């Protein structure tokens, strides 16, 4: 990951940990903890979109929300353009929010059904000071046009739109403060295939037009590769492999990355058989979290957790025996 010229990276996550307390198993027993994100560090430099790939329960959505201060990390930091968000006073954090916005997965759940599109799209503006009503209306119209809707749509309600159009409304809301970073959590996985392409094209257009850098969360490798320059593969709260998209997908070094690539359905009739069923056990306390599912696991893997270490081609991998 190259250092950005002259200053801090757009987003820097430093050793971030997020644990949740689960309900007690016994009346007076201790409350067990779930480490959703278990010590993750990465940098997003401006202009190089970053993708996080993982399955459900990998902690990728928690990490995304912590990255833009919608969750407070248990320890570690998230820094936007050099300033730590969890240390910022409330007013300062509100100002910082103009630089980072979010797109959600479900275009039905992410728009308040009782508000007009103008109010929904204008919501982030309403939180900024010094924007007149006329300016606001003009920017709402501008944002709607940028996502391919018309300015007259501002008066409508969400239920008057199809799923794809709703996602455009959600994208317009994320654009309106002219943010530098947009976190997109599975932005197309709730959409039909023919609509997915429209939204992905729109996202790449906006990237070029407005200089947006995405932090994209997805389970779909093809979608992540389409948008992102860097990819991190996440498993049980940790990054197991990070690196430039082409290299990582063309020659994965971590067995889990390999398994994800192989398992993704492809448009061809013949198919490589899936590996033997994974055990669903929570995994051993020591060693690599993937060891119980890994076809290449050796005794060292069960004893010692591998750290994320650099490979020659700019990648990092957390595996004792990279492929």
């Amino acid at each position, binding site marked *: 990951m190259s250092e950005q010229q002259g200053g801090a990276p757009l987003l820097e996550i430093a050793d971030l940990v997020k644990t949740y307390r689960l309900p007690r198993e016994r009346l007076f027993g201790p409350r067990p903890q779930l480490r959703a994100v278990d010590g993750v560090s990465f940098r997003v430099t401006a202009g190089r979109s970053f993708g996080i790939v993982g399955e459900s329960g990998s902690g990728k959505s928690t990490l995304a929300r912590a990255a833009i201060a919608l969750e407070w990390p248990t320890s570690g930091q998230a820094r936007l353009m050099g300033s730590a968000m969890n240390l910022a006073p409330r007013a300062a954090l509100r100002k910082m929010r103009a630089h980072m916005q979010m797109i959600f997965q479900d275009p039905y759940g992410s728009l308040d059904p009782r508000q007009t599109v103008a109010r929904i799209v204008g919501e982030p503006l309403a939180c900024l000071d010094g924007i007149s009503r006329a300016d606001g209306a003009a920017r709402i119209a501008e944002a709607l046009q940028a996502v391919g809707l018309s300015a007259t749509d501002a008066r409508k309600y969400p239920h008057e739109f199809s799923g794809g159009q709703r996602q455009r409304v959600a994208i317009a809301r994320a654009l309106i403060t002219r943010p530098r970073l947009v976190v997109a959590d599975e932005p197309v996985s709730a959409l*039909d*295939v*023919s609509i997915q392409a429209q939204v992905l094209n729109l996202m790449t257009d906006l990237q070029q037009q407005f200089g947006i850098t995405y932090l994209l969360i997805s389970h779909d490798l*093809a979608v992540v590769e389409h*948008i992102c320059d860097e990819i991190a593969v996440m498993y049980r709260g940790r990054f197991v492999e990070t690196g430039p998209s082409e290299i990582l997908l063309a020659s994965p070094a971590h067995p889990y990355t390999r398994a994800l690539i192989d398992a993704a359905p492809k448009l061809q009739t013949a198919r490589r058989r899936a590996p033997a*069923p994974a055990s669903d056990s929570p995994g051993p306390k020591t060693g690599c979290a993937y060891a119980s599912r890994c076809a290449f696991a050796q005794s060292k893997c069960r004893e010692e957790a591998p750290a994320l270490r650099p490979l020659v081609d700019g990648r990092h991998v957390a595996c004792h025996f990279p492929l």
Partner: protein
Amino acid sequence: MLLEVAELSVDLPTSGGVRRIVRSASFALDHGQTLGIVGESGSGKTMTALALMGLLPDGATTSGAILFEGRDLLKLNEAQMRDLRGDRVAMIFQEPMTALNPLHSIGRQIAEPLILHRGLSNAAAHAEAVRLLERVGLPDPVRRARAYPHQLSGGQRQRAMIAMALGCAPRLIIADEPTTALDVTVQAQILDLIADLGAQSDMALILVSHDLAVIAQNCERVLVMYGGMAMESGRTDDVLARPAHPYTKALLQARPRVGARRGERLQAIAGAAPSAGAMPKGCPFAGRCPLTIAACGEALPAPVMLGGDHMARCIRIDAAERAA
């Protein structure tokens, strides 16, 4: 033929009047064959599957014929249909958590159809349930049979659903988006399992999915639905290699591919699918289709045979061929 569906149409009453959700769909399936029905939301694929099970929502009316083992399912009454369901035809649903009863143990739910249809005793049915759980690859089946749905992971629950469907050795299994709620790595295992079980016992399989890739890798034949209409069907190899319908072509090109150049423009299909309320009388893809002419909107296009059982319903196939 095990199953022959001829000119099946389904009408559903909605708040805005009666809507045609499936428009004269025809297809056939023999013992041990696999058919994939692919389509977007609102394409009518799920209603087609539910019609085969006799599980259409209240008030739905049907026309055409569904011949299963020589009997027209549309002419059976509810009691006759109930005898068939779970016995000769079984279904696997998308979300096993909602399809399983949270208050009954897995074993009891698998045993139930065995008692009902096969007349097994409680003990025999339970032993059979354990055997079925073993067959679908659940480790420690005796303990799993005693477990309740919430104690299993998503993949395990889907395996239990499959065990339940297998119980009476049905001739036809209909799986409606069986892996959509699952992770990619688990999805591949479940699809393998379904394919293996089908091959072992000569069961026919209908796999319903929004994902053409899932269908491509698991079904010999494919039926592409859109706007309630079967747009194209045939052997999966043929349809993938030589897609004839402009919609199928667009669908194949719209997906981002691993290994493609980043930021490359995808071949998006403009516009949105017609809603069931505003279904045109002609081809449902007219308007979104780059080859649309006036005649497309006037009447439902007739099936065009393209060699073998490769069929496409499009009056512009020649133009589509030239454009390719």
